[in-house]
């Protein structure tokens, strides 16, 4: 069955499901077209293309009760007019079950999958597809109205479709124990300690034959934070602590990390959000990358039917040894949504990215400087129908 037939079948299923299962079922279908100025993210001659997109979204949430089921699905099909190698069909699905015992004990179990597609590395090469399977569970015990103990565990597996990149297949397990204390009606402070492992079963570097699992790592974290309302108009979501990300070889990380986010309601129709993230993630380019991101977001409602959203962010990415690289990125997002009626809206958007990259060439005799920079702009319009 080709892609178009799959989408048609999916849409028919959506409408039939809505007709028969209306109370717990809701969904959205988006149809749009946009222009990308640099589809391959290259630093040389830009390659622009017109892209058509279809995005179905489905939500099935049963009535809140002792036993509750939640299913979410999001699909996306992108058709490029001149570069068919960039055509993509992506999906993201999540299934969750909540078991609640007299409001004191709550167990959440979930699992899902996501097909991800990184842009191709060169022209005339297909996108790099990899599939993430994840699952986990969380057990909460409410000792009182203000105290909650929690324990959770997550499992994540990332599998690459391309045989040449099987060495990047990996899985990660992480578990956390914590305590949450509500010191104001809508504000709480929490502490948590967690431990996890990430393993690359075929984890040798590309082109090398010795399977010595250089990229395996362990994670130990002691975190704490405050989340909730500071006042009627200000919200805070902050997290900080000490993270130990230890690798078998080369650089390891043992330093503080944090996330800060403030939201301020300027007026009932204006909203401002600012934040600073300082976090560490495993990287497919080297051991780990340190991400420092500062962002400023602003939203405004114009009249009764227009919603304006903007976001400006600056990110500094520092890649660890053995393959050092420093990236700086400026991203701007601008969205304007017009509600034609309660079920139909039109979205116009302009998104841009500017990347400046510097890498440290550590290998003798290497000819090509791997550093790359690019500029990318995406602009278009889409219609979204809610049912």
């Amino acid at each position: 069955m080709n892609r178009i037939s799959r989408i048609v079948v999916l849409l028919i299923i959506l409408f039939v499901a809505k007709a028969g299962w209306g109370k717990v079922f809701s969904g959205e279908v988006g149809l749009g077209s946009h222009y990308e100025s640099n589809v391959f993210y290259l630093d040389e001659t830009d390659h622009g293309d017109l892209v058509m997109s279809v995005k179905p979204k489905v939500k099935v949430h049963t009535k809140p009760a002792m036993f509750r089921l939640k299913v979410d699905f999001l699909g996306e099909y992108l058709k490029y007019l001149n570069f068919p190698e960039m055509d993509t069909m992506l999906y993201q699905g999540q299934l969750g079950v909540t078991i609640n015992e007299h409001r004191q004990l709550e167990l959440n179990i979930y699992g899902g999958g996501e097909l991800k597609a990184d842009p191709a590395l060169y022209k005339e090469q297909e996108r790099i597809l990899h599939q993430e399977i994840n699952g986990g569970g969380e057990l909460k015990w409410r000792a009182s109205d203000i105290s909650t103990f929690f324990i959770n565990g997550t499992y994540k597996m990332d599998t690459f479709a391309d045989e040449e990149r099987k060495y990047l297949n990996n899985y990660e397990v992480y578990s956390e124990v914590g305590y949450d204390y509500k010191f104001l009606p809508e504000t709480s402070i929490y502490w948590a300690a967690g431990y996890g492992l990430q393993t690359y079963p075929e984890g040798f570097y590309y082109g090398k034959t010795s399977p010595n699992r250089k990229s395996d790592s362990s994670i130990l974290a002691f975190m704490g934070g405050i989340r909730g309302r500071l006042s009627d108009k200000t919200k805070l979501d902050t997290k900080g602590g000490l993270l130990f990300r230890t690798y078998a070889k080369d650089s390891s990380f043992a330093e503080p990390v944090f996330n800060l986010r403030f939201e301020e309601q300027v007026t009932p129709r204006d909203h401002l959000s600012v934040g600073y993230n300082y976090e560490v993630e495993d990287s497919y380019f080297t051991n780990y990358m340190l991400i420092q991101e500062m962002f400023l977001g602003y939203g405004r409602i114009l009249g009764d039917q227009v919603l304006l959203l903007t976001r400006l962010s600056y990110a500094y990415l520092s890649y660890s040894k053995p393959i050092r690289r420093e990236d700086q990125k400026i991203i701007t997002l601008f969205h304007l949504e017009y509600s034609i009626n309660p079920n139909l809206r039109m979205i116009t958007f302009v998104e841009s990215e500017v990347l400046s990259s510097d890498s440290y060439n550590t290998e003798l005799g290497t000819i090509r400087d791997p550093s790359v920079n690019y500029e990318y702009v995406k602009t278009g319009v889409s219609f979204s129908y809610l049912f």
Partner: protein
Amino acid sequence: VILLFVTLLFSTANADLTESKDLAIASALVREFRSECPHIYNSDRLQTERMYKNFEKAKAEDEREVLACYQQQVSQVKAVHFLYKRLCDEVTIHGVPTEVNALSRVLVMSRKHRRGVRTYVGQLNDCLKEAWAHESYYLDYKKTGDESSLLAERLRLLKPRVPFKANRYDYR
């Protein structure tokens, strides 16, 4: 205890708006209320309308636990909504009062009811949660045009989707 008693005995109760700085602060707070109250009133109006509909629906479907939650809150919401409307009309039509007693009264009332019916809606939702009520009975500000919550949520979801990578730089 003696020290506290003496302090309280000789302290002066100065709750009146007499200083020009106090009057300026009071006027600014009432002006802030005046700029916000039409939006909050409109959002609350939609909530109360939806509350009446749900109340009737619960009666028709004989959902006793849901009905009990609504019966507890309906009169409170109705009364607060009425007071809020009266206060909002007063400051938007006649402007911020200049006379000290009137300003004091408006200031106290506007601070007391600045959240509109939101507190009672929260209490109603808590009660419905305890009663395992269906989601359709909840009064969700997002569904009835609470623009602030909508903006906050949409801003949180607005994130760059493109992964942090530079092209022509192959994986390790």
